[in-house]
């Protein structure tokens, strides 16, 4: 059972207080009427499903009721980072920067 750091309550709480809400950073198309059926289908149903690092959205349902983002490994279940809505993962940013500097990839798994 996960122990999840809520970025708003600023402490870790047990998984049962949270609901998993699927892939993070999903954007509703700004102009739905202009989206093709294909684009709309992609938005509705097609999600990242990586074996490794995954950015997810969770909500602290029994606590502060806030949605937030988690960077989690879907194999080891390690949570690398939680961060508020509207922000980007600093861990992923650092990993990308590291790759650009030519550092070896982190062993934790492939980045989606």
């Amino acid at each position, binding site marked *: 059972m996960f122990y999840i750091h809520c970025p*708003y*309550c*600023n*402490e870790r*709480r*047990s998984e*049962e*207080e949270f609901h998993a809400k699927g892939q993070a950073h999903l954007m509703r198309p700004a102009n739905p009427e202009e989206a093709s059926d294909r684009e709309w289908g992609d938005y509705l149903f097609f999600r990242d499903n990586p074996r490794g690092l995954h950015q997810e959205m969770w909500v602290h349902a*029994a*606590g*502060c*009721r*806030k949605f937030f983002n988690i960077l989690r490994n879907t194999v080891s279940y390690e949570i690398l980072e939680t961060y508020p809505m509207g922000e980007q993962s600093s861990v992923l940013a650092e990993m990308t920067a590291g790759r650009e500097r030519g550092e070896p990839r982190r062993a934790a798994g492939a980045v989606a």
Partner: protein
Amino acid sequence: MSKVEVFQQQPSGAVAAESPFHFSRQRNPLAPAKGEAGVIMAERPFLTHLILRGTPEVLLGGVRNVTGLTLPQTPCSMNSKEDKSLQWLAPDEWLLILPPGSEFSTEKALRGELGDGSYAIVNVSGGQTVLELSGPNAREVLMKSTSCDLHPRTFPEGRGVSTVFAKTGAIIRRPDAQRWELVIRRSFADYLYRWLLSAGAEYGITTQER
């Protein structure tokens, strides 16, 4: 008409009121615990419960002026003074608990202070109640019910959290070293009453009417 409808919901005359635990106490009256009771339950019914929403910047001054309480900005903390308390629930949400009957006047006063800003005040007094737990085994009973760490090192006085409690939710607060408070939703009151009787049975559990 006002942009927000503030409504005196309390009867002016004598009207029989029933607290959320009214039914439970009638159906399942608690016999005094045999020997020393490990856990003592006491409802503090009919208190004023107001939910405040907004940014601290908007709320801080007005709230202090009206209630004399400082808006707590540390997550999961509360400030209390005498029979008033103000608890952090979320970065933009607080629970203000005051003596019975003050919801209308307080909301009016707050709105008067806060003016036309972006905030919300909601009276939820009818929908929840406070249950006080004390006694040497009060913490054990709570530990059976919540996955939050209640050890004094991590749950000092003045802390309050919203969490899963048994199979529903509740707010757990520690106003002082001797007492715990649960803030419970009305519709779950009877379930939680029965739950607490079951959890407290091994220690002896009794109630104290105030």
